[in-house]
């Protein structure tokens, strides 16, 4: 039984199976909200309310012809989607869903897992860059460089913003941070600026409008994904969906007090809180226009980074006054 439990974690919950189902659901939710905000319908006909549309897209892409450019680095080109999927799926194991107790640590919850999780979330960016760079297409190359340029903009503010609640809680373990805020919900208000900053940064990390610069279709066609097709593209899309789930799970853990309450209630809380964050991200996507890559970097360093540092200072001061 003890050996079975990790396997269950990896394959069923919160591992691959759950992630696939919930990731596609989140994509559906995002698309539907985005469409409704624009007074459109969104997916309607695949499954009830179009719920199966992302799944149908995935299946269709899996069945499509897979083309590898002649000049591309074939090994890298093929490996990247799989590695990317593995990375984000691994990251999900660290998000403290109901199975983690705040006291006992295990293979998926240990001191410092917030840092590991943040690093695992940085990896997809590098994978996108390599994907663009390895496909040798001009548009992909431009997209790849844009990915890296943006990374230098948003990564530091994101780290600072996510670390400030951890600092206040005095722990580097996600489960403990969540437990700390469950005990003192009012302290969550202190972190509201950091929450806003990290929402913007996560939006940039997920490459959604206004930060969808690396695959801005009107400028550089498909950007990093121009040359990807078939199964590889399907994997990349699934990877983006799962990254959306993981990042919103991380934000919900750190800023919204985690998911207490055992199996049932904790699960419901997980769904509600992540959907709330995805709703905010969708709203941001609908309300803005894409900006230029130079504007991203200057925006991040002129506004986001100072704000994140200010938040950190606030937390340190508060911690000094707190008993």
């Amino acid at each position: 039984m003890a050996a079975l439990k990790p396997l269950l974690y990896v394959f069923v919950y919160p591992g691959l199976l759950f992630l696939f189902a919930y990731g596609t659901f989140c994509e559906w939710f995002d698309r539907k909200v985005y469409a409704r905000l624009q007074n459109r319908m969104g997916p309607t006909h695949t499954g009830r309310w179009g719920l199966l549309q992302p799944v149908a897209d995935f299946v269709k892409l899996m069945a499509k012809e897979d083309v590898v450019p002649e000049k591309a680095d074939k090994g890298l080109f093929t490996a990247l989607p799989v590695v990317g999927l593995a990375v984000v799926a691994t990251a999900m194991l660290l998000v403290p869903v109901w199975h983690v107790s705040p006291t006992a640590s295990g293979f998926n919850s240990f001191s410092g897992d917030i840092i590991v999780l943040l690093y695992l979330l940085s990896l997809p960016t590098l994978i996108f860059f390599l994907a663009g760079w390895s496909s040798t297409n001009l548009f992909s190359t431009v997209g790849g460089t844009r990915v890296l340029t943006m990374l230098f903009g948003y990564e530091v503010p994101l780290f600072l913003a996510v670390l400030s609640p951890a600092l206040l809680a005095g722990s580097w373990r996600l489960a403990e941070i969540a437990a700390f805020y469950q005990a003192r919900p009012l302290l969550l208000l202190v972190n509201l600026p950091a929450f806003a900053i990290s929402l913007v940064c996560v939006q940039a990390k997920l490459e959604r409008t206004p930060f969808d610069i690396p695959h801005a279709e009107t400028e550089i066609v498909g950007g990093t994904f121009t040359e990807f097709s078939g199964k590889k593209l399907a994997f990349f899309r699934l990877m983006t969906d799962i990254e959306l789930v993981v990042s919103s799970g991380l934000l919900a853990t750190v800023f919204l007090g985690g998911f207490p309450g055992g199996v049932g209630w904790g699960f419901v809380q997980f769904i509600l809180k992540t959907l709330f964050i995805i709703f905010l991200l969708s709203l941001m996507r609908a309300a803005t226009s894409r900006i230029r890559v130079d504007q991203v970097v200057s925006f991040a360093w002129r506004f986001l980074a100072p704000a994140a540092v200010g938040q950190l200072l606030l937390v340190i001061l508060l911690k000094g006054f707190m008993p």
Partner: protein
Amino acid sequence: MRIGAFIPELLRHLFKKPATVDYPFKKLSPPEGFRGTPYLHPETCIVCRACERDCPAEAIEIVELSAAEKRFRLTIHNDRCIHCAQCVDSCPTDAMRMDDKYEIAAFSRWDLKAAWEYVRAVVKPKAPAPAPAAPAPSANPPSDNG
């Protein structure tokens, strides 16, 4: 400059009825006077060939089947038709009309051709013959009926 200037408008529409229509399942009806596909009323056609001559797309073809019987065949090549309704305007006897169909795609161009075989009608034009159609019917043979 106002951050999030669009957000109130967006949220206002979140639970409104969508502006789009679930097309193949629900359809909007075209307004009155919609120019759909031309069709012929053979009872009133006097074979003046005004439509054939004025058709910008050369989509109307009139063939005389039998001179003695005054039988004609009028073919509308809907695969070429540009739905301008000039034939309706040119027709002196109101024999050409437009329906309001708008889903007129077909799998083969042959399925789009419509033909009528009929005997020439002897109908007096309602109005005194319209100016463009004034010359004798066969004075201006169509350049080519392609």
